[in-house]
């Protein structure tokens, strides 16, 4: 997944420094990468932002099931335009009324993980019916963030990692973890790839150094 670029680049650099072996990283959307693997991409490891695509590859026996692990986690937050927006209580606030004529920026609610999770969370909180017709669905989380940052949409649902670095936006609420399926970035070795090399890299990503890097970039790391 492209959204992990900075963190993974740093981890790969550390891996290189430690082992002397280079990891070549190709970033693209999960569906594109998954299809490329289905059609013979010469890759060793797949890291996805969407467990669904990992499941597909697993069904197709394209990954080594034993190597699959949940590498990273993330949190879903509600952001608002402007630097000093006031916090908001998701349980009590009427998002629909707050939006008025304007729109709530999200990733595609039926297609992209952040959108799917966001829709589930809003539904669980009883907010979905009032905002369903007011969503502006962007192609991915970053685009949703831009809509809020530019002020085009007053509020949006994005990942915590994106919100942290975004200028001109404020996190006004964090969605409760139980309001939506966990945000998980699974990783696995690809069966047609170099299994040993893949396992070494995956192991490294779970090392304390790598975990430190991920945490620094705002990701959560699931327990080993």
């Amino acid at each position, binding site marked *: 997944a492209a959204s992990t670029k900075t963190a993974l680049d740093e981890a790969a650099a550390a891996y290189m420094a430690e082992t002397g072996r280079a990891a070549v990283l190709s970033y693209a959307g999960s569906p594109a990468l998954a299809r490329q693997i289905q059609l013979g991409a010469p890759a060793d490891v797949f890291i996805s932002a969407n467990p*669904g695509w990992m499941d597909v590859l697993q069904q197709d026996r394209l990954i080594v099931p034993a190597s699959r692990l949940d590498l990273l986690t993330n949190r879903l937050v509600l952001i608002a335009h402007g630097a000093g927006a006031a916090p908001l209580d998701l349980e009590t606030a009427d998002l629909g009324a707050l939006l008025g004529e304007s729109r709530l920026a999200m990733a*595609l609610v039926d*297609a992209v993980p952040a959108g799917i999770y966001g829709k589930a969370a809003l539904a669980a909180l009883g907010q979905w019916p009032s905002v369903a017709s007011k*969503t502006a669905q962007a192609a991915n989380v970053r685009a949703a963030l*831009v809509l809020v940052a*530019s002020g085009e949409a007053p509020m949006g649902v994005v990942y915590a990692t994106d919100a942290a670095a975004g200028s001109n936006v404020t996190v006004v609420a964090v969605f409760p973890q139980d309001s939506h399926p966990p945000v998980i970035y699974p990783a696995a070795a690809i069966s047609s790839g170099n299994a040993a090399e893949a396992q070494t890299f995956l192991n490294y990503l779970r090392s304390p150094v790598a975990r430190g890097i991920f945490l620094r970039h705002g990701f959560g790391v699931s327990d080993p």
Partner: protein
Amino acid sequence: MNAEAAWLGPEEWQAVMLSLRVSLWATLAALPLAVFVAYALARWQFPGKQLLNSLVHLPLILPPVVTGYLLLMVFGTKGPVGGALQQIGIVFAFRWTGAALAAGIMAFPLMVRAIRLSVEAVDPKLEQAAATLGASRALCFATVTLPMILPGLIAGTVLGFAKAMGEFGATITFVSSIPGQTQTLPSAIYTFLQVPGGESAALRLTLVSIAIALIALLLSELLARRVADRAGGR
């Protein structure tokens, strides 16, 4: 493709109709401006000509996502142009008009290039002849140049229309994807392709999209042939 699959759901139909509307408006609205710019680039010398030329080509050069961001900055309700237009009731953000604007801007360089080539192929001697017969510059253009560039105009329009039908990156970035408002065919196709198992739906919509564009293409070829026949065997 079985009968059930071929049938489009209401939201999909919406996307088809919206795409048609967006593309038609984008092409038609861009056409007069494209003709003007193409004519100016082909025939006139003026300061800033190369700048204009570069500006026209920008949407082609830039990754569509970047174009989308730029549109957002300029034509969004908070943008300099978008803000001003909002005062007089013209809003692009999150409206189908915004999708048409994005599609039109992406199609613009293709239209200008095709038309410009045609203008350059018109012998200025014929325009001179029209002038001696009493036609002012504007009338010269309307009665001689315009009919003679029709093939390029048609080619440019169909290129533009096809591009507008396929445009996705700039559109979704600028106006996102709101069903019935800004969810065009390509946005819908993209959505389907994001989820595992969405391929068949995506394929259905892709075929619809191809069919529409090919019909436009065929019509344009027919039209162009009639125009060429009209202009006679030279």
